[in-house]
């Protein structure tokens, strides 16, 4: 891990929606700079809500959210958000989609295309720059979304089950790609998933959330070497022991 300072701090964060639905209940959570933190928990428990709070798309009912020591008020421009349903623009080519954050930042046409081409090539979709998103497979679209997120130059990546809709084998390759990208860039990543293996393979730490209203049930360090071979690491004894440990914590919540 690089840095090690605090990237995000949630202090005693609770959130209830207007209809009285209590989603989060007193969440205290710190995300260290340069780490991959996985959030796991039952479906609908509020994992995505935590990402929305960090992104500034939602404000807590009580408590505070800070990003690099600054309170989050309004949308947090230090983050980039990748969701399961990508936000690629269907009328733009892959290259133009990747270059969008540079275009918004006012980077000149030639430079932004050069950088977008280089990023697409690094992520293995360099040949598909002229294609529109509907002409790409799910895996390619994920790579394209990742390229756009990297070009946005955000310090924190919020990833909400970004590979959930992709078949298992391709998902492994994308997870490995994410680990490789992390090794090169050391970005802070907050990663929401339902998949315990995915959490163990990717993360430095795993936060287990309860059924709604979400509370933190456990925080576990993943004491496995990083960068990793995600396919191999999940077969290790330590990873399997961790899987069962996390499963035991979650099992009761799923029955509840």
């Amino acid at each position: 891990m690089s840095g090690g300072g605090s990237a995000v701090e949630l202090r005693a964060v609770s959130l209830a929606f207007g209809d009285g639905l209590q989603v989060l209940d007193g969440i205290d959570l710190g995300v260290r700079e340069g780490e991959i933190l996985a959030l796991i928990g039952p479906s609908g428990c509020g994992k995505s809500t935590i990402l929305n709070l960090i992104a500034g798309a939602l404000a807590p009912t009580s408590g505070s959210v800070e990003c690099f020591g600054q309170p989050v008020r309004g949308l947090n421009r230090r983050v980039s958000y990748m969701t399961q349903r990508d936000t690629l623009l269907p009328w733009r080519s892959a290259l133009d989609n990747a270059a969008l954050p540079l275009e918004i930042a006012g980077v000149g046409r030639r430079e932004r295309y050069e950088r977008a081409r280089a990023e697409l090539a690094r992520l293995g979709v360099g040949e598909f720059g002229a294609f529109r998103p509907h002409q790409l497979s799910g895996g390619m679209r994920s790579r394209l979304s990742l390229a756009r997120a990297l070009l946005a130059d955000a310090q924190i990546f919020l990833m909400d089950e970004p590979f959930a809709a992709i078949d298992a084998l391709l998902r492994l390759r994308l997870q490995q790609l994410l680990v490789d990208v992390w090794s090169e860039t050391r970005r802070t990543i907050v990663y929401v998933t339902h998949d315990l293996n995915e959490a163990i393979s990717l993360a430095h730490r795993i936060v287990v959330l309860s059924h709604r209203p979400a509370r933190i049930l456990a925080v576990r360090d993943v004491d496995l070497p990083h960068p990793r071979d995600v396919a191999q690491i999940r077969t290790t004894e330590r990873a399997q022991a961790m899987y069962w440990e996390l499963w035991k914590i979650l099992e009761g919540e799923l029955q509840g």
Partner: protein
Amino acid sequence: MAGPARRPRRVRVLGARLAVLALVFAVWQLLPQSVLPDYAFGRPAGVLAALVSLISSGTAFIATAETLRTTLLGILVAAPIGILVAFAAAAAVGAWVIEPVTTVLYATPKVGLISLFILWFGLSTRGHFALVLMTVGPVFYYAARQGLSEVDPNTVIAFRLMGAGRLKIARSLVIRSMTPNLLGVTRLAFPIAFGATVFAELRVPVGVNLGALLSRYALALDGDNTVAIMLIMGVVAYILDVAISRPLRAYAQRTGTGIPAV
């Protein structure tokens, strides 16, 4: 191998169609006045002669041009107004003010407005344009409203996280997201506008246009010329539809976005 086998079948189908058409024309030409009166239906030979006369004198082209000018001008003015009003109505306050007005306007039978336009503009072609505007404006308004409601809120957030301002979001996301809806409704708007133009020209028969000619020939009980004008209108409507739907379909294929009604 399938080609030669298919060709005779295609020829047979074409032959059958021509035979049916010839039979219809023959029956139409030969049926007695008591069954098909000339003033109401004309006769094929008379309709053909009327068509030749309308085309050779240039009247058909002048009338079509004037009708199409009103139609196109109506669409060109109605589309931006409808879209701008939809943007205004999408704002929180705008919806309270604009929505009731647009609902009443949409529900009001537009054909009734022509009497009002006669009072406002007298016997003038301005009334034709006004009717097209009032008929097509709401069509664009509702398409734009629908398009606005379909803009993905997550993509708006993604744009804002990348630092995009309102103008950039409007230009690069909102308007582009609405484009399939607007293109789809453009195809629908043309026949609607064309019909509204001809109706207005019929009710206020001034100028040289298809509606005025239709009105004149119908009042003179001239079945041949009336049917000839109807045929010209059919051909114009068909050409308009083909001219508009082809580029729309090409756009839909290029971008992979579905365009309603294309």
